[in-house]
């Protein structure tokens, strides 16, 4: 008990229970997936900032463009899979899902291959970027593997379609316990389960039951449950009410994007996908923006903040906070803000500014 308190006083913030405490001299290798469109430039920006902050991280860039497997299916190249399995941590830029035959959504494929069961999106108001909402500070944790996105659909008869929403006890329990562990590890006060059990009594009821059982294991965290529509209603009026939100897939998708909208959009929102056995892939959730690719106009904030989240997950929280602070300083200053946030700086100017603030 005492050793636990001591450890928590001196340890940096971690998300996963597995993984050992690192000494700062150890250089960790992280898989980098630059992505498409503006992906390569923002990945380069992040690498530059990391090197000027002297973060002990080595990058291993891989390409996840699907290749044809011997059996004819389109799969992620084995090299990429091996890399992530070895390094356990990845940083991903925006991927373009090719339209048309044969390609599964790449994001979906990554999620399935590495069993990424929880999507974490911390939403915090950015000081430099004014939105109608200040003081937003919440985290949405979304079940990432099942629910409404199971992709099981059938045409019963012509004109009648059914889509199956799958909720399992295993997955619900996993994400509920993760939510509470995250809350404890990051000093959050309460966890709210978001559901629609008045209508979907069995499925959301099962999810709620798992959340309740997980809550009993973590009595120091306050737990309550709220209907999805009530959460939306209050979120738009007073986002300060909420702390950590945990929910099934579809509600999580919508609510996490709603919260991203509160703080300024997908261009400034970090996101992390946590898998089992300590694996995690952090990503920027915006699109590939092919219209501004290669023109040095992109805003690397989302990828940068996701990378900071990654550092916190790896136990390198001090570096993460330093870079985060530098990024917020750069956004606060109108001269160094990128165009999408209302400033005039280019991507490289913003990157240089962050490097300056880091030192």
């Amino acid at each position: 008990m005492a050793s636990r308190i001591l450890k928590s006083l001196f340890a940096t913030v971690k998300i996963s229970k597995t993984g050992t405490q690192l000494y700062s001299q150890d250089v960790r290798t992280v898989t980098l997936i630059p992505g498409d469109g503006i992906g390569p430039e923002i990945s380069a920006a992040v690498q530059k900032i990391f090197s000027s902050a002297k973060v002990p991280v080595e990058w291993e860039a891989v390409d996840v463009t699907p290749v044809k497997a011997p059996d004819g299916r389109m799969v992620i190249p084995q090299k990429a899979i091996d890399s992530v399995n070895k390094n356990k941590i990845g940083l991903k830029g925006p991927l373009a899902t090719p339209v048309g035959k044969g390609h599964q959504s790449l994001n979906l494929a990554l999620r399935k291959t590495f069993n990424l069961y929880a999507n974490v999106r911390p939403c915090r108001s950015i000081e430099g970027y004014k939105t109608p909402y200040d003081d937003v500070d919440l985290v949405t944790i979304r079940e990432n593997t099942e629910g409404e996105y199971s992709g099981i659909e059938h045409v019963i008869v012509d004109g009648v379609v059914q889509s199956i929403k799958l909720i399992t006890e295993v997955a619900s329990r996993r994400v509920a316990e993760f939510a509470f562990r995250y809350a404890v590890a990051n000093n959050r006060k309460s966890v709210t389960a978001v559901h629609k059990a008045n209508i979907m009594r069995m499925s959301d009821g099962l999810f709620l039951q798992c959340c309740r059982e997980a809550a009993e294991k973590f009595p120091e965290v306050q737990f309550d449950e709220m209907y999805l529509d009530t959460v939306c209603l209050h979120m738009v009026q007073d986002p300060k009410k909420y702390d950590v939100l945990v929910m099934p897939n579809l509600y999580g998708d919508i609510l996490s994007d709603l919260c991203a909208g509160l703080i300024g959009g997908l261009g400034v929102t970090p996101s992390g996908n946590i898998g089992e056995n300590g694996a995690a892939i952090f990503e920027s959730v915006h699109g590939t923006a092919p219209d501004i690719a290669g023109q040095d106009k992109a805003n690397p904030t989302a990828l940068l903040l996701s990378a900071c989240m990654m550092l916190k997950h790896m136990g390198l929280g001090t570096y993460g906070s330093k870079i985060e602070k530098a990024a917020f300083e750069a956004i606060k200053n109108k001269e160094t803000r990128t165009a999408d946030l209302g400033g005039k700086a280019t991507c490289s100017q913003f990157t240089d500014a962050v490097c300056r603030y880091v030192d």
Partner: protein
Amino acid sequence: MAAYRSLRLEKYFFRNNLNKRSILGTSAVLRGSYSQPKQNEAVDQRRQFSRHTGAKYGGRYTVTAIAGDGIGPELMGHVKHVFKVADVPVDFEDIYLDSAHDADTDLAHAVLAVKRNRVALKGNVETKHLKPGFVSHNLLLRVSLDLFANVIHCRSIPGVSTRHGDVDIVVIRENTEGEYKSLEHENVPGVVESLKVITRESSKRIARYAFEYARQQGRKKVTAVHKANIMKLSDGMFLDTCRQMAAEYPELKFEDMIVDNTCMQLVSRPQQFDVMVMPNLYGNIVSNIGCSLVGGPGLTAGSNIGSDFAIFEMGTRNTGKSIAGENIANPSAMLMAGVELCRYLGLARHADVIEKSIWRTISEDKVHTPDLGGTATTSDVVHSITQKVQNEMRKW
């Protein structure tokens, strides 16, 4: 100065002419009179908008009143009071459907009463989702009466301080199917499947309603909200149906948007939206966001319209359990539901008097209950509204 201010409010309030602000009826639409090319423009305007198909006894309508739980009973009492002061020719038939009266027979009586009177005003019935085998009675009522369209008009009211101004969104939500089919089963212990059913018939019906509404009310744009990139068959069919319907209304702009992007846009730039049509669950989310953009659950009414029946209620369907009996609930939403009820019955003049009084109370006199940041009680607000109604009635 006060006269000028009230004139400005009048202009803001009566932006279009009187008829355009009533609820669109559906019978003519569904009987196919709009599927033919526009040959008979000289249609009786009153017949278009007064859709009540029930009987009138001695010039008075009978409306089923289902008070429900929480703040329902007190607000229903206030509506009856305001109706009395405004001399609205409506008699209420009280039906008890709430947490104390939750047997199947109670529900059957309620359904029969609404079928008898064709129209109802309703509070929200609490759903005890912990009780096994219990299906929401609000849902069962809507489905038994086939009230396929839920229409919620979210309008910014001057005088209510919100983060966004100039919001004027109509959310039209499919009300009977989709995720709310209550078809669930447990195949294997620990694995639950819930079915979401989308049919082309219902999608066509709601799309037709939405586009007709937009045309009749002089709106410019219809946005279909969906998640067809993931649910390709179900939401894909809904989206295709909307697109096909849009082809019949070339004067209206049609666009579609994925639901998570819609939510993001709603909290950053809600002024871009006009009429929005969507399946059931997304409608739940978007309507709640819309209501809170304009000031919260206390201000907006919701109409559930079917081809033969209609039920009017508060837009966000809350029981308000935590503030029941404390005299702090905002009566505006329930009173606005009463206003929509009057329009549906063809009592446009009464509707305008009550609506104007509500708006004047909120915007000019700023009698605000705690949910709007004020300190007034429910009774204060109702008193202010009835005073204005009385003044208006003297002019008749």
